[in-house]
Each structure stands twice: as C-alpha cells, then as structure tokens.
C-alpha cells in the first residue's frame, strides 16, 4: 500500500518533468510512424515473394510485429527511463541517495521515471495487431483475448527481468553505458516468429535469451495458432525470471557496498 503511494508520487513527478520539457510530441509521433511504416514495408517486400514464412502468413506475422511494437513501447515508456538512469547515477555517485531511502532500492530503481510519449508506440503496435487480426478474419473469443493478455503480461515480466539483470551489471562494470543495448540486440530477432530460425538459434532464443516468450508466444495466442507447451511455460518463466533478477539485484547492491569507496 505504501509502495503504491510512492509509485504515485514518482509518477506525478515524472509527468511534471516530462511536461517541464514539453517534449516534441508530434516529432516523436512522426518518427514512430515512419519506423513502423518502414518495417511494415519490409514485411510487404518479403511477402511479395512468398505466401508464408515458417508457416506464418502475412496477417499472423503482422500481428506479431504489432506485439513487437507494443512490448517495445512498454520498455521505452516504463523500463528504460528508470533503469538507464541508475547506470548514470552509479557513475556519478548520486545512487547513494537511493540506497539511503527507507524503501527497497529495486522498487525505486524501477519505478522512478517514465516517458509519456512512448504511449504512441504502444498505440501503433495495438493498431497493427488490430489490422493483422482484421486481415486474418478468424474472429476472437473471450478466452483467446484473455490468454493473449496473460501471455503479454508474462512477456513483459520476462522483459523486465532481462532489463533489471542487465542494469545490475553496472555494479561490476561501472563504465558500461549501453549495456541494456544487449536487449535491443536480441529483441531485434523478435520481429519474426522464432520458428523461422535455424535450430540452434531457435533454442537460444527460447532458453537463453527468451525472445520466443516475448513476441512469438503472445502472437501465437491471439492468432489462434495451435497451443504449444511454450504457453504453459510462459507464466512460470516470467515469475522465475523476475525472482532471479531481484536476487541478482541484491547481489549487485551487496557488491556496490563492499567494493566501492
């Protein structure tokens, strides 16, 4: 309950900071639209030469691309602003102010900031999902939508765990600025269903860096593809990943407290 109030206080101040700069809303929207537009263009080029890709048709792949942008928007809106700030603060020493606060440091580190305008990325992603589903024209069931939302939630939990883990590395390698880039690196593969990749890469993207759970599984759930064991595994993987990342965060804090001056 107390944490809710704190999160609300952070939210308010983050919103105010955002407004203090009056971010160039239309410029950013234009940028997102062009980025999304060119990647749809890319899909169109691919599908001008084929009917299906690893037995996903255009509509299904489009839906997956929508999921890709929704999750990317969530990351850009809620996760990267707070967590990238930590990397900065560990370097300049102001991270100390977080540690002396009587609230779990992971909570402060994860909730402090957000960037409002990325809501357009989420909206664009949702739009693409809608177009994809429209083209698919197979109709939606309440159960299917519920399953989809559950899979999205699991995907977001996994993404959060990855981001937190990467951020925690800063306690060992202070100089790393863009370590969270590792996420983008692997996430790039999530524009297409994990099934298209060769065996070893597919395994890596399922078990090592689970992009499969982040974009492929939710898209499978909503486009009515066959249910696989991945869907049962997704929530479990999500919970375990978040717990493991939190433990790692604590180890990182411990390291920060014993190895710096």
């Amino acid at each position, binding site marked *: 309950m107390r944490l809710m109030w704190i999160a609300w206080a952070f939210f308010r101040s983050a919103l105010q900071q955002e407004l203090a700069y009056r971010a*160039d809303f239309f*410029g*950013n929207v*234009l*940028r997102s639209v*062009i*980025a999304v*537009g*060119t*990647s749809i*263009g*890319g899909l*169109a*080029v*691919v599908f*001008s*030469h*084929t009917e299906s*890709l*690893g037995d996903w048709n255009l509509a299904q792949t489009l839906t997956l691309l929508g999921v890709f942008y929704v999750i990317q928007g969530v990351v850009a809106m809620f996760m990267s602003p707070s967590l990238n700030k930590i990397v900065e603060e560990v370097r300049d020493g102001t991270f100390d102010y977080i540690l002396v606060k009587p609230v779990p440091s992971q909570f402060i580190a994860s909730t402090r900031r957000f960037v409002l305008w990325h809501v357009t990325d989420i909206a664009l992603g949702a739009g693409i999902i809608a177009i994809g589903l429209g083209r698919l024209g197979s109709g939606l069931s309440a159960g299917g939508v519920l399953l989809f939302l559950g899979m999205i939630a699991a995907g977001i939990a996994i993404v959060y765990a990855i981001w937190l883990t990467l951020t925690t590395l800063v306690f060992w*390698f202070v*100089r*790393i*600025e*863009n*370590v969270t*880039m*590792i996420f*983008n*690196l*692997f996430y*790039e*593969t999530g*524009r*297409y269903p994990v099934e*298209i*990749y*060769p065996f070893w*890469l597919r395994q890596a993207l399922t078990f090592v860096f689970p992009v499969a759970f982040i974009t492929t599984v939710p898209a499978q759930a909503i486009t009515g593809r066959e249910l696989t064991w991945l869907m049962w595994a997704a929530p479990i993987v999500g919970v375990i990943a978040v717990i493991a990342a939190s433990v790692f965060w604590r180890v990182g804090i411990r390291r920060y407290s014993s190895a710096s001056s």
Partner: protein
Amino acid sequence: MLAGTVALTKAELANLFQYRIVMFLYALWEVVNPIVYLVVWSLVAGDGEVGGYRRGDFMMYYLVFMLVSHLTVAIEVYTFAPLIQQGKLSPRLLRPMHPSWSAAATNIAYKTVSLIMLVPVWIALFLILRPPFQGDLIGILLFVPAISMAVLISFLAGSAFAMLAFWTTKSFSFWEIWMSLLFLFGGQVAPVAVLPDLARALAIGMPFRYALGFPVEVVLGRLEPAELLTGFALQGAWTIVAAVVFALVWRAGIRRYSAVGA
C-alpha cells in the same frame, strides 16, 4: 592534417578500448539485423530463386552486407552532435584543423576497434554457412571505389544530420528517419534487385543504396556492365551532392554558432 588525424585516431583508440564491452555490443548489433534477413530470405528462397538470388546468394549477400554496413555506418549523430549541443565545440574550433577531421578520427577508431571484435564472429558465421562466392577480380577491384564512396556519403550525410544540432535539439529524430529509409531502400531489408518494381526504381534513384548496398552488389558481381555504369555514375553524383550539402550546412551552422555565442 593527416598526421593530426592519425594522432587523434590513436588517442581515440586508447579511449575506446576502455569501453571494450560496449564496443563488442555495437559490433554484434550490426551482425544481428543482417542475420534476421539472411534467415528470412533463405527461407523464402527455399530451393528456388528470388529476384535472381538463390539461397546461397542471399547468405553471401548478407555476410558481405554485415561488413559493408559496419564500414559505412555513420556515428556522428552520437559523437559529433553532442559536442554541438553541449557547447563543447569551441575548443575544437581552436585547433588548426576542421572539427570534422577529429570526427573522422573518432569514426575510424570506432570502426577499427569494433572490426577486431566483429571479424571472429564473421569468420565463424562464414564457416557455418559456407555460402558460394561468385565474385571475380573485377568485382573486387571495383569494390574499392564503391565502398570508399559509400563511406564518404555516409560520413558526410551523418555529419550533416549531426550538424542540424546547430538549429534543433531534435537532430537525432531526423537521423532516425534517414536510418528507416536506409533500412528499406539501402539494401538491408532485401537486396535492391529483390525489391518490387516501384521500390526498386526508387532505390536506384535515391542515395541510400549508394551509402550501403551498392558495394555489396558490386563485389558479388551481381550487376551487368550497364547497371555498374549507371550505379557508379549515380554514386559519384550522390557523393558530390553529399559533399555540397555537408559544406553548406557546416557554413550556415558555424555562422549560427558564432552568432549565438556558445
């Protein structure tokens, strides 16, 4: 001038080695995207042919593309624009050389270091995929001017976008738009020959292919003599255009910088 650039490059190298992991990540970044499209097109081609490319051709195309995209990538929006934004350009203006020389030094240093990281990854991929190489000596000889001009176009364009920071804090947004178009028309999403007719015609006319994909097509011997001729003519033309734009933007920008007094 050259000695100065060499000295600066050395200093930049020393600086970059401190960021060893970050460098490695940047290098990997340029591997991942081509791999995605390598996989996609191998799958689409199957045992057949798409726009003149067989499966092995796609593999070879994207492997070479990785190196070319690495050599041509412009980083000035990350390295040069912040100098302008934070008012740190003045000390560089006092040096007896154009600040773009030191930007070039940063660029060369970055590519050298990350190339060292990239090459083992590249060799490993090559040995795994073992694509057929069909180029010839002429292609390899022509590759030199093609890649040189591509690097130049990229650097000049990247610098021009970076210099938009003289006027706006949003130079990065404009750069992202350039990158999006580069993705679509530069030969990244597909070799230009594979694009649908309209897109292909656009790609051949616009500068993006000449900053990225053209050298790949040249070295792999994918172009007919007539295509080579128009390609080089257009690449040369775009190099000149890029140089002129660069010079104009610089002149206007520096006038503004001095007037505002940062």
